[in-house]
């Protein structure tokens, strides 16, 4: 089961890439815990999670070929 992960703003700098492909993540909690382990700085970062372009709160199942977006807050103006 594949999931595309899109990283916005400075989150992309943490992972070194704007886009990641993850394998075998049944839900967002599983996906995030793998990402946090791989990129500890990400665990300390603030961001909102969207699954297939809808913001989620809590844990959500990830259907096949889901796109998960992690969006940090920006303050600049």
């Amino acid at each position, binding site marked *: 089961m594949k999931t595309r992960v*899109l990283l*916005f*703003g*400075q989150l992309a700098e943490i992972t070194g890439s*704007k886009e990641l492909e993850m394998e075998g993540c049944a839900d967002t909690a599983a996906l995030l815990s793998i990402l946090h382990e791989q990129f500890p700085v990400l665990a300390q*970062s*603030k961001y*909102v999670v*969207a699954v297939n*372009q*809808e*913001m989620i*709160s809590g844990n959500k199942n990830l259907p096949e070929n889901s796109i998960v*977006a992690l*969006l*940090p*807050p*920006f*303050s*600049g*103006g």
Partner: protein
Amino acid sequence: MQKEISYERYQRQMILPGFGEHAQGQLADASVLVIGAGGLGCPVLQYLVAAGVGRIGIADGDSVSLSNLHRQVLFHTSDIGKNKAETAADRLRRLNPEIVIQPIAENVSSRNLLEIISAFDIVVDGTDNFATRYMINDACVLMNKVLVYAAVSRFEGQVAIFNYPTAQAGRSSNYRDLFPEPPGENEILNCADAGVIGVLPGIIGSMQANEVIKVITGMGELLVNQLLTFNAMTNQLYTVKITAKQETAQLIPQTAAAFEKTDYAWLCASPSTVNEIDARTFNNLVQKGNIDIVDVRELHEMPAVDEFQHYRIPLAELKTAYLQLKNDTVVVFCQSGKRSLLAMKFLSEQLGTTKRIHSLQGGIIAWKTFCQTK
């Protein structure tokens, strides 16, 4: 109030299908407050003034500096040192003398914001820090004002409309539905630290102005319950649906009095300066030095700690103790990390944001264990 409208000035937009005299009249009757005449504020102001929005407030207490000019396109090199709101107002009046422009040459605060906002229909957030952004969001929720939000960082920008009146739920989602609590001001970089490509706030600010015009005239589809992001490097637009959350409402001050008492600068600074740290982080801090460490256990409690210098002030005595803290970073610890949390809270109330205050998670037990296993 129907004002005299110059047909020639607005002719190119008035001939648009669905626009006409009616939409132009709606613009003339509208009032918009733009907070922050910076990278976003400049294009927003230029387009709203040019389009004929009847009354426009500009709130900004900052003055123009040389490093602003690559993106704050209303200002000239000769404006350096002048107040932004007044300078922008002066320039914009020459662009369109038929509308009312009201400069407010001061930074908004929880003391003046509600009064300033009350005189306008729509608020545009073009500020550059989280403290002010959360303050503006909360004020708009409290005062039932539509907020047109945008923010930029490096090559990316975000745009959304918050707190828009809806038939079912009362109001659409707001900034706190996205990010309930402010990050520490140091957690996320602003333009000064992160950098920003000059044209980006031009694009994002223009999108913001576009949303304002659509809100006023009722044309098109609005970015309500949606966050749009744009990447200037890849040209990618990405929109995410936002839903209003019930728990968000209680984060926002419920009354004007509560709002005025909220210290937004502190709220934004505190998560990064007052927190728990784990044994590993604590160990690193101890090795780096230049920290004050306080043991808040009772004097007889074991294990004894002789690995590093520290004060011994039992929790009950902390409130009356005269603290001679020398360093900017303070770590409190106890046996298991519970009492030190209380101590951290107390110290943060006493010391405000002048120091970084940490509590050792899991207490001295966790650190001793860490030292044995590392």
